[in-house]
């Protein structure tokens, strides 16, 4: 019963099913995102307070969500690779990092673009934005550590330790920043909080998040294949696959 699970640790198996899965993930992702765009930009009614501007929520919030979700994935994969010494797990962690970092950047940039018309400045030390910024530092540090260690196995294991330490610290950092923000703002709500959100406004958001998640899975399939190849030495399955 668990063979499908065990096969997940086998590089050639993962290489092949990732290849097959990719279109099954990529096209639905595109469809979900297009539907969400239509729902968010055309169908959802304008917000009472923020007018049409609130629609930036539909790219900002999903990006922020993905940035955190991917970091969690990365840390779990890293831990699995570290504890059970599974190369595929390290490959998943390595593959996730750049995608997560880009989503973090998107969250910060869209947050900034949202903030400018709302509060007049390009950057606010809002709790969520500051927290995202620190998350970006964590991603960059992880990737920097990976590139600075030449030997691939050591790089995998060292960055895995860092990822686990990072994920344990993440809630602490998150709540410290929120606490820090409230005490300097007084009793106001978090600036980039969702407006009081009604049904027609909510569903495009959820569909977008779903779309981004499936998109991440699709991109991950492609990247994991590259990472698996890089970690494989002299394996006959590799010759077979490269010849096709």
């Amino acid at each position, binding site marked *: 019963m668990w063979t499908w699970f065990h096969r997940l640790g086998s590089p050639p198996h993962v290489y092949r099913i990732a290849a097959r899965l990719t279109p099954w993930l990529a096209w639905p992702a595109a469809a979900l995102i297009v539907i969400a765009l239509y729902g968010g930009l055309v169908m959802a009614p304008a917000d009472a307070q923020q007018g049409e501007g609130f629609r930036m929520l539909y790219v900002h919030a999903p990006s922020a969500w993905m940035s955190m979700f991917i970091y969690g994935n990365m840390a779990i994969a890293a831990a699995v690779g570290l504890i059970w010494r599974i190369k595929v797990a390290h490959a998943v962690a390595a593959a996730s990092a750049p995608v997560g970092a880009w989503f973090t950047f998107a969250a910060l940039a869209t947050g900034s673009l949202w903030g400018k018309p709302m509060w007049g400045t390009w950057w606010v030390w809002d709790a969520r934005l500051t927290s995202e910024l620190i998350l970006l530092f964590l991603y960059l540090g992880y990737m920097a550590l990976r590139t600075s260690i030449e030997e691939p*196995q050591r790089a995998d294991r060292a960055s895995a330790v860092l990822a686990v330490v990072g994920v344990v610290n993440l809630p602490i950092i998150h709540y410290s920043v929120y606490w820090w923000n409230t005490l300097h703002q007084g009793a106001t709500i978090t600036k980039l909080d969702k407006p009081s959100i009604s049904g027609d406004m909510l569903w495009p958001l959820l569909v977008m998040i779903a779309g981004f998640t499936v998109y991440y899975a699709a991109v991950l399939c492609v990247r994991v294949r590259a990472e698996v190849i890089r970690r494989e030495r002299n394996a006959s399955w590799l010759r077979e696959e490269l010849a096709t």
Partner: protein
Amino acid sequence: MRPTGLLAAGALLYGRDLKLAFRRWEQVTQPVVFFLMVTTLFPLALSPDTAQLRQVAAGIVWVAALLSALLALEFMFRSDYEDGTLEQLVLSGQPLWWLAMVKAFAHWTVSGLPLVLVSPLVAASLSVPAEAQWTVLASLALGTGILSFLGAVGAALTLGVRRGSVLLSLLVLPLTMPALIFGARAVDMAIMGDSPRGPLLLLTAMLILSLSLGPFATSAGLKVSME
């Protein structure tokens, strides 16, 4: 021959590290001088007005201390790694997490504690009132401790990386931001006359957390670097 007990091994390692540190006295004094100099930069950059300085004093003292402690961090395992002692420690049969904890503590004694001792001077230069000095000492004692135990993980992971000191700072700084938030807040509250108990208790909790979990991550990092 009885194998050396935990405490005995720990005491030996601690004593050795201290002795070695005092032989290279500059490594102890340089971060302190850096601390003093960085603090001086702020009045020069901002204004000598005491009222203004008092407003930002908490942040300045904390950031300067953090950066100074960070400077010393790369030396925690560096010389042991280079002369083979680290390998001996890993092979010694003593639990590596315990040795990592002792080394981090020794490192704090040699680089964090001097900063703490100098901090009242620095704080006074920024017009921090006398009643707040105890908070400065306490918060920095806790904060530099947190940095030593958390930083040890980074130091272990970046061993043998060429020019690893900048990378080390990049890795460790985000992890220390919560301590910075609460530590600076504690000093700020003390300056304003409120009780800093809340933030100080949180800092203590963070220290306990980094002290108890840090060494395990550090020993994992050491083993990876020694592969």
